[in-house]
Structures are given as structure tokens and as C-alpha cells.
């Protein structure tokens, strides 16, 4: 004997979408149908299949109300069924009510302005005493985060990164690249393709003197390996780390 089993109900305003699975004696699935109706009592297969297009209940009257149909249409298509005919009929009936809109193919609504600006990131590189970049469109920014160097492009996941002393690499529009050595600070990636980098000091590499770096490095190394207090040694080690990074950046 065939047995009818209702497995799911999706409520969409006042309309229920019910999936009926027909099982044979062994429990295997032989057919699956969907019914779009305010309330359809369990019935035989023949009734169910015709109910889709010519329902005994006035279901088609309700279909124009289905402006939320994108909620349940993917649910239909994601289910595999041996007999997809009734599903197809249901789908056609639902779509006839409102012509295929872009909302179904691409659920994310995109405006024209968004699409145009989407490949640029607005960078603000600010110091306490100067704004080097002020919401300028750039292509990519590589930042020395504590967790490692990371590249930020447009539409990056929003995040806050603590920076260590290192090179901020900015690829501007047109492919030109600018490098700043920053002292560390914070980089905040905001949801609308905005990147704010706040640092204490930032200078382009040509403003540094390699000799000054080297002489400082010698001094800092002396303190770091000396017999000062733990605090002094820790601070000297920071200095060594910063200066070594700077030296490597200048030599590169």
C-alpha cells in the first residue's frame, strides 16, 4: 500500500506550502509533490498533482500575494525529487503571477552607485598632527598587522587590526605604489569599503637616513643585551625590533 506523509510545512503569509512524500511498503520514496494551498487535506496523488494548476481550493488567487516568494523558491529547487513535474507546474504558476525578477536570480540588491565604486577602497591614513590620506580612493593597501601582513582590497570583511611598526604599502589608482613606514597603531576596515589607519608616526622611506638607523640599532642592542632592569631591556628590544624592520625596509 502506498502511504502519504507530509514532511514539511512552510508558511508564507496565509499560504502553506506542503511537501508530500509518497512512500512504498519498503519505506522507499517513490514520489514527492508540493501543494500550494491555504490548507489542503491529505489526498490521493492524482488530486495532489492536479491541485497545483487547477486546485479545488482557490490557490491561484493567493499567488499574487507571494512577493516573498524568493524565500521559498530556493527551497523548492534545492530538493531533489524523482517526479519533478508537479514542482515545475507549481513553480510556473508562482512565477506567472510576477514575471521573473532579478531578485530571484541575484537576491542581493545592487544599486548603480554601489557597482561603480565597488573596486576602490577609501583610505584615510591619519596621524595626530597630519592627515596623509583623507578618504582617498585607492586600489589596495597592505598593512603590517600584529597577526601578519595583510592586503586590504575593496569590500573587505570589516575588522580592526592592531598594527606593529612596519611598511604600509598603498597601491593607488593607476598602479602607482606608495610606501610609508608607520610606528604602529590601528587599522579599521569599515563595512562600506572604508579603511582608516591611525598611527603615531608615518614617513615615506626616502625620509629616513640609514646611518641614523644603524647607529641607533647599535645603541639599542647594547641596552638589550646589557644588565639593565627588565623594563629597560624590554623597551630596548622593542626598539631593536622596530629598527631592524626599518633597516630591512630601507635596504629592500
Amino acid at each position: 500500500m502506498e502511504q502519504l506523509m507530509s514532511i514539511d510545512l512552510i508558511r508564507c503569509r496565509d499560504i502553506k506550502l506542503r511537501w508530500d512524500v509518497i512512500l512504498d511498503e519498503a519505506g522507499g520514496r517513490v514520489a514527492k509533490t508540493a501543494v500550494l494551498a491555504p490548507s489542503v487535506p491529505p489526498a490521493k496523488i492524482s488530486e495532489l498533482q492536479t491541485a497545483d494548476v487547477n486546485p479545488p481550493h482557490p490557490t491561484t488567487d493567493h499567488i499574487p500575494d507571494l512577493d516573498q516568494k524568493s524565500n521559498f523558491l530556493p527551497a523548492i529547487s534545492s530538493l531533489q525529487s524523482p517526479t519533478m513535474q508537479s514542482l515545475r507546474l507549481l513553480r510556473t504558476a508562482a512565477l506567472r503571477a510576477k514575471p521573473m525578477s532579478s531578485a530571484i536570480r541575484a537576491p542581493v540588491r545592487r544599486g548603480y552607485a554601489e557597482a561603480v565604486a565597488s573596486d576602490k577602497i577609501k583610505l584615510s591614513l591619519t596621524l595626530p598632527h597630519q592627515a596623509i590620506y583623507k578618504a582617498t580612493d585607492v586600489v589596495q593597501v597592505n598593512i603590517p598587522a600584529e597577526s601578519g601582513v595583510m592586503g586590504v582590497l575593496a569590500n573587505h570583511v570589516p575588522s580592526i587590526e592592531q598594527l606593529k611598526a612596519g611598511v604600509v604599502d598603498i597601491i593607488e589608482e593607476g598602479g602607482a605604489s606608495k610606501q610609508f613606514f608607520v610606528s604602529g597603531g590601528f587599522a579599521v576596515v569599515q563595512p562600506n569599503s572604508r579603511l582608516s589607519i591611525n598611527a603615531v608616526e608615518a614617513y615615506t622611506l626616502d625620509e629616513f637616513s640609514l646611518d641614523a638607523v644603524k647607529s641607533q640599532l647599535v645603541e639599542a642592542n647594547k641596552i638589550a643585551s646589557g644588565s639593565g632592569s627588565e623594563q629597560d631591556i624590554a623597551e630596548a628590544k622593542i626598539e631593536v625590533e622596530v629598527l631592524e624592520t626599518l633597516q630591512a625596509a630601507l635596504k629592500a
Partner: protein
Amino acid sequence: MAFAWKQAGVSYNKYLSIAAQAIRKSLKEQARAAAERRSGNELKVSRWENGKQGETKYLGTSEQ
């Protein structure tokens, strides 16, 4: 290596000021002079009581 300074009890704020100081000292002459002028901080404290400013105490400068 990362956060080795944190274990020694150095805050990120202190890390930043050390790094910034190292950067200022590494600059070429002209830029360094301008930067060093900026780096110093002076602190004066005075207590206000009954709408009158009390004695001003000079707490020194952070110039390194």
C-alpha cells in the same frame, strides 16, 4: 616574538611611543628637527578651588 614586550609588562601605548621615538630619531636631519619639536610634551598641574586657580606645579617634560 610578537607580544614579547607584553609579557614584560609594557603596554601597547608604551610600545607605540617607543616605536614612534625610534622612527623620529631615524629621520634625515630636516624632517627630524620638525618631528622632535613635536615629540615633546610638557605638563603643568594646578588645582581649582572655589573658582580660583591654586598653585601651578610644573611636572616636567617628556623630552627624551
